[in-house]
Structure formats: structure tokens, C-alpha cells
């Protein structure tokens, strides 16, 4: 027997504000609501209120987790918050959440700045902390408010992204085998420019010049302060790296494809998921999708999908899952999760 990391419970928080395809249709006359749904698989996106931050969403998700009763705030000895929309440049949002959640001051806390690959990366950190004996009960939070980066007239991203948060309790358990892992990772910073908010950091501080709006060749409006996605490059990257990553992980884990019950991929949009599913020849019943009512919630998509699988009873008996995250960085990662 050894000390291993396992997921004890997961909870979510989606903000009340909604952006529907009907709302978007009014802004983009060339894209009727039916076309947006057909391409993206998304009907509604949660949108944070102007005064509602990723920290607020993460706090609400953590409180929903505690309300479920499996873990209490006083049990938590480490907080990991994955976000790309921190409440402040500094201090660390996870530190603020320690106080707001009533987690003991003996706990560690840190933020991880990753997007769509972030949940799997944070699971690897949680596993490392627990299996090395450094922590026993980790509150893994994912929260983002990409809507605040997006120009209202940029349909290339506004149709996809939604705001949301999740809270996962990763705890120590004495067992023969770890429920989490192995992992494979990947990074290609040469593609940083393909999914980026160009201004607002220190490389290019926000200014009157960076706020100047322009219209691109696909009739989208944005400024350098807004989120930009080169859809073609991101699609090419995904189709290239994800199948390779899946094969690499199967190889590393010594597993055959038919030994995986479900492939839980980052929920980018229906079109991309379908392209990946076709390419990897995975039956649709083995690739759960949760995107219609929430949109692409960045690092929250994988845990949100796990929650819907739990609710549907798909995980009533022990199952072996492969989780695959991929996106901004460019960054990707995959792991095996027994749950």
C-alpha cells in the first residue's frame, strides 16, 4: 500500500448571466442562431457580471463543493487555482481565496496560469503534492472569465467561450495503485501568437494605441487588448498533437485503446471534437460532450464534463478515463484517471 491521490468530489459554478445564440444572431447577421449551434454545439454561454471575477466564480464553486459534505474548508491543506483572469496582477488569487473560504492559514496556495490544458496539469501537481507527502487534501479550482477579454463584435471567439468555475477535491488515499496518472505533457511556445491577448501585460502595456479597434478579413472587430484566436492554426495544432498525445499516453500506461472506457477531451467546440473523434475513430458514446449550455469554459471544461458523467450515472462503477487538455500556450497534456 502507498499514499496515492484520488478525486473525492467535484462541484461547479456557472454565472447566472447568459449569452444565447439568439443574442449573437442580432450582432452577426451573416451567422443565424441555427448555424452557430450547428457549428459550435453551443446554445448558451455563462457570462460573469461586470463586478464578478474568476476569484468570485472559484469561491462559489468551492462553496458548492463544501456544501456537498465530502470535504470541509478546514480539511484543505493546499489550494491550486487555475486561471488566466486573476483578480489582481498581484497578490495571487488563490491566497485571497484561502481567506475568503476559511481554509486554515497552514495551507499552501498558488495560481497556475494555463488555459485549456490546465486541469490535467493541475491534477499532476496535486498528485505530486499528495504522493510526495507534502499535502493531504487539495482544493483544485479552475475559473475563467474570458468574456471580459472578448470584443463583442468578434464572432470567432464570442460564439465559443463561456465563463465558469469548478472545484475538485483531490485527497490522499492508501491504495495499491494511484487513481491519477500516468501523464504526458507537451508545449510549443512557437504557437503563442495563435491564441493570445496581445496587450495588457508588460511586453505591451495597455494604452490608447493598443485599444484601437480594427476589423479583420472575416469581419470581426477587436483591439490588441482583446482575445485573439487564429482558428486555422489552432485547429491544425489540435488535429496534429491530440491523436499523437493519446497514442503516447496509451503507450506509457501500457494500455490498449479498448481498455479506456471514456475519452474526456477539452470541450473546445462541437466541430473540433467531432473532427478529433473521427480522426481517432472513437465511438461517440465513449466521448462525452458537455458544451451546449455552458460553452468552452477553458480549464473548467473537463471537470464540468466529469460532473455531467457523474450525474448521468456513467461513473457509478469504477471506470478508466483518459483526460486530454489542449490549447493556449500552445500547451497540452493527458492523463489516465480511474474514478
Amino acid at each position, binding site marked *: 500500500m502507498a499514499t496515492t491521490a484520488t478525486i473525492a468530489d467535484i462541484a461547479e459554478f456557472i454565472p447566472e448571466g447568459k449569452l444565447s445564440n439568439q443574442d449573437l444572431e442580432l450582432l452577426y447577421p451573416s451567422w443565424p442562431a441555427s448555424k452557430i449551434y450547428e457549428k459550435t454545439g453551443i446554445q448558451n454561454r455563462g457570462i460573469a457580471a461586470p463586478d464578478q471575477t474568476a476569484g468570485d466564480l472559484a469561491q462559489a464553486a468551492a462553496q458548492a463543493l463544501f456544501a456537498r459534505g465530502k470535504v470541509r474548508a478546514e480539511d484543505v491543506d493546499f489550494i491550486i487555482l487555475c486561471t488566466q483572469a486573476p483578480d489582481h496582477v498581484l497578490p495571487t488569487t488563490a491566497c485571497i481565496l484561502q481567506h475568503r473560504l476559511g481554509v486554515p492559514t497552514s495551507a499552501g496556495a498558488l495560481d497556475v496560469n494555463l488555459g485549456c490544458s490546465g486541469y490535467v496539469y493541475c491534477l499532476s501537481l496535486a498528485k505530486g503534492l499528495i504522493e510526495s507527502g507534502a499535502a493531504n487534501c487539495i482544493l483544485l479550482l479552475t475559473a475563467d472569465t474570458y468574456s471580459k477579454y472578448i470584443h463583442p463584435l468578434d464572432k470567432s471567439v464570442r460564439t465559443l467561450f463561456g465563463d465558469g468555475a469548478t472545484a475538485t477535491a483531490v485527497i490522499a488515499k492508501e491504495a495499491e495503485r494511484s487513481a491519477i496518472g500516468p501523464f504526458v505533457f507537451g508545449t510549443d511556445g512557437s504557437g503563442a501568437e495563435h491564441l493570445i491577448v496581445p496587450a495588457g501585460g508588460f511586453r505591451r502595456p495597455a494604452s490608447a494605441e493598443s485599444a484601437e479597434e480594427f476589423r479583420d478579413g472575416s*469581419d470581426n472587430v477587436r483591439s490588441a487588448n482583446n482575445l485573439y484566436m487564429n*482558428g*486555422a492554426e489552432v*485547429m491544425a495544432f489540435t*488535429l496534429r498533437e491530440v491523436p499523437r498525445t493519446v497514442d503516447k499516453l496509451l503507450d506509457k500506461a501500457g494500455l490498449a485503446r479498448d481498455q479506456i472506457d471514456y475519452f474526456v477531451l477539452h470541450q473546445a467546440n462541437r*466541430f473540433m471534437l467531432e*473532427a478529433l473523434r473521427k*480522426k481517432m475513430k472513437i465511438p461517440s458514446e465513449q466521448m462525452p460532450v458537455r458544451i451546449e449550455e455552458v460553452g468552452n469554459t477553458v480549464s473548467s471544461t473537463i471537470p464540468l464534463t466529469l460532473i455531467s458523467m457523474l450525474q448521468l450515472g456513467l461513473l457509478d462503477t469504477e471506470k478508466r478515463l483518459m483526460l486530454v487538455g489542449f490549447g493556449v500556450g500552445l500547451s497540452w497534456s493527458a492523463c489516465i484517471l480511474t474514478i
Partner: protein
Amino acid sequence: MSEFHKGIAEILEIDESAVNAATDLHAGEAAWDSLAVVSTIALIDDCFNVMLDGQSLTNCNTVGDIEALIEAARKA
């Protein structure tokens, strides 16, 4: 090419029988925009197992231009 033509017809929102090398990418109901290019990248990867870059595809004017890119990529 038939699977490819079928996919292109769906992307451009035109009838499949109207797709040939001379078909103007800007003639359909749907714009030859970033979404159409993304869709075409996935379609070509599926049909021919080659990956084209977005900028070259954006610059295409006809289905024949795309087919020339596919041919070049397959020979490369």
C-alpha cells in the same frame, strides 16, 4: 475527390453538383471566412491526411486552387 467535394459543398452551403475545380469559393451562401477555412482544414485532413496552413487556404479563390495545394502537400 467526391467526399472532399461533398464537404466543400456543405462548407460553402451550395449544391454538391455545383462543386468543380472552377467553383468560386466566394460564390456560396456562406462567406469564405475563418470558419470556412477551419472547416476546410479539418475536411482535408480527414479526406487526404494532409494538413494545409490557414493563410494559404484563405488566399485561395477556387476549389481548384485548394486542390492544387492538396496535391502539392501530398507530393511534399
